[in-house]
């Protein structure tokens, strides 16, 4: 009897660490070969990169204990046998990387804006936040506050956008582009599917035109052509012109992404909404768009990440974003030749932001269960 009650354990080879390894890494001989090859590569690469970036790197002082103020003082330039990365350049230039040329006495305004941005994003990121409604009000007025904080006015001294740079410009371009493109994109997507020929033709024309030209062309258009159309008295700010170009570009792409979502909604949903006597706007706002946007989350995040990285193109029109500041640093005779450190740092910052965005999109997908039983759940 006892023997009958005894539960037999599953074979060792299918559970625990060993089981996981067998199934995922050593399933058959090709699989095993690839695993071994990758392990070998990592074994070669990881110690080297750790050594270069951390263990034999200079952070503020070189191996002689002196504070580094130019590239000649980096350990690896003093003694090529000794030393890895020379992060002192990032340390010395950190202010420029984060704020650009923003005046030091006013920099608290940027810090406040950064903190407020985090606060404004909070209710968007966590649906369960207590008092979420009030936080959301703050999110809506945040752009206005940020404008006055960063640019000046309302008692703040004006700081010309020419002095903005680094991460500040990257974030302003990325956030504004993404935030404005979303509503514009929705309108364009609805417009393109509209039964009114004038509206649908105009939207299609706009989308196809913008999608048909590279972002660089639009940036040049914004930078070079726009001022020619404006009388001299009206001086449109350089950053604003770039923002216009970036927003137009992003909204055309966003429109197509959302149109894809709209087309995935079964016609039954439209018919059901109409049979309830809903107007066009009520139908879209309450029935169609919530579902369409839900299934479009992965591509929306995809284009947003794309835009965030594309903001580096503004260097071409002479605006120094994070990457531009990096290149400017490389042109300083004090820091010539430290391109590995600078590009590594810039890519790390970009990676942190884009990886954060993609993780957030995964979390949203899980929470909203996108892709399951659309239209029938």
């Amino acid at each position, binding site marked *: 009897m006892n023997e009958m009650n005894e539960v037999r354990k599953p074979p060792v080879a299918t559970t625990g660490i060993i089981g996981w390894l067998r199934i995922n890494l050593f399933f058959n001989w090709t699989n095993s070969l690839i695993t071994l090859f990758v392990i070998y590569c990592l074994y070669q690469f990881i110690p080297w990169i750790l050594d270069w970036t951390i263990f034999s790197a200079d952070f503020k002082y070189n191996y002689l204990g002196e504070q580094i103020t130019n590239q000649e003082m980096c350990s690896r330039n003093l003694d090529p046998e000794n030393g890895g990365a020379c992060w002192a350049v990032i340390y010395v230039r950190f202010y420029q990387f984060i704020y650009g040329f923003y005046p030091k006495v006013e920099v608290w305004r940027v810090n406040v804006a950064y903190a407020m941005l985090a606060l404004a994003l909070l209710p968007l990121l966590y649906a369960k936040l207590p008092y979420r409604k009030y936080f959301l009000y703050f999110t809506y007025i945040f752009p206005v506050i940020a404008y006055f904080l960063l640019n000046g006015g309302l008692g703040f001294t004006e700081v010309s956008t020419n002095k903005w740079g680094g991460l500040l410009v990257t974030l302003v371009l990325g956030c504004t582009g993404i935030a404005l493109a979303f509503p514009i994109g929705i309108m364009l997507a609805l417009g393109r599917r509209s039964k009114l020929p004038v509206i649908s033709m105009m939207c299609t024309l706009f989308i196809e035109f913008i999608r048909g030209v590279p972002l660089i062309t639009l940036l040049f258009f914004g*930078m070079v052509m726009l001022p020619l*159309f404006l009388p001299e008295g009206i001086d449109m700010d350089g950053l604003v012109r770039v923002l216009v170009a970036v927003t137009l570009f992003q909204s055309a792409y966003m429109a197509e992404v959302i149109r894809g979502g709209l087309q995935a909604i079964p016609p039954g949903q439209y018919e059901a909404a109409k049979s309830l006597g809903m107007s066009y706007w009520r139908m879209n706002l309450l029935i169609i768009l919530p579902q369409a946007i839900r299934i479009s989350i992965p591509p929306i995040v995809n284009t947003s990440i794309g835009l965030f990285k594309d903001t580096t193109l503004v260097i071409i029109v002479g605006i120094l974003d994070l990457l531009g500041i990096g290149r400017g640093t490389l042109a*300083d005779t004090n820091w010539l030749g430290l391109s590995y450190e600078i590009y590594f740092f810039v890519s790390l910052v970009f990676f942190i932001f884009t990886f954060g965005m993609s993780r957030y999109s995964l979390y949203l997908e899980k929470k909203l269960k996108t892709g399951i039983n659309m239209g029938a759940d």
Partner: protein
Amino acid sequence: MKKLLSIFAVVAFAFSAHAGTLDDVKNRGFLKCGVTTGLAGFAAPDDSGEWAGLDADMCRAVAVAVFGDRSKVEFITTTGKSRFPTLASGEVDMLARNTTWTISRDVNLGFEFVGVNFYDGQGFMVPSALGVSSATELDGATVCIQTGTTTELNLADFFRLNGISYEALPIETNDEGKENLFAGRCDVYTTDASGLSSTRAAASNPDKWKVLPEIISKEPLGPLVRHGDHQWGDVVRWSLNAMIIAEELGVTSENVDAQMSSNVPEVLRLLGVEGNYGEMLELSNDWAYQIIKQIGNYSESYEANVGPDTPLEIARGLNALWTQGGILYAPPFR
């Protein structure tokens, strides 16, 4: 249609109304000067975010001439492609952006080059180990060259003239050229001599690389303004000339106060002790004194930014005064 016409009228007016840049600058309270997004020795932000370099000094000199204050300048970064539209649209008052003075830019684009603040020229850099001492020995070499530039055409001309062949390895940026040369993918890298110097300075062991003596093109780099505003052009031109003349007369930022009681007539005229040259330019009479006091003469600016004591180690060469074997020459101050 009427609205459209009026817009065109306004645009046309805007273009014709560029005369009076000096007044615009004075009213605005600061100078807008177009510089590069970063070029070693010419214009690059330093650790405190201040722009430094030969071109940045040129901008500051003009700001000092107008306001007597070296901080009254806003640097607008421009790229090779955006620099000309930025100047034409009036977004900057002047460009000091290592721009080569050519006939088409001077005439066709409607700009006015007011002088030359650096005589550059295309050169070659090779590994010392290659054992080459002249560019004419480069038969059959692989050359790293930036595409779509005048350097490409100059290179083709030079090799054809000398009856030797080469293989081009097209690259886009200076960084790319550097990496390719250092990795041995090309035997020679060719670009402007000042660019070669900064590339060499960036190498982990600069002595392993050698800049060949041949300079195969003329690249006079200088500040420029819009066509048609001669008063403003004069201000920029004489700000540059004042620095060159100061070097010629031995006036430096350190001895300028002592030179106020000099017995050389041209020094007294330059420093505004005699004559009313400032008034002629609609500037204060001590404008040149202020430039020398706050920026220094040409030599001081050169030595601090690109000279032999900087990592760039560019010898004066063509940029020496005409009295010292170079071709730097400014018209007399009288």
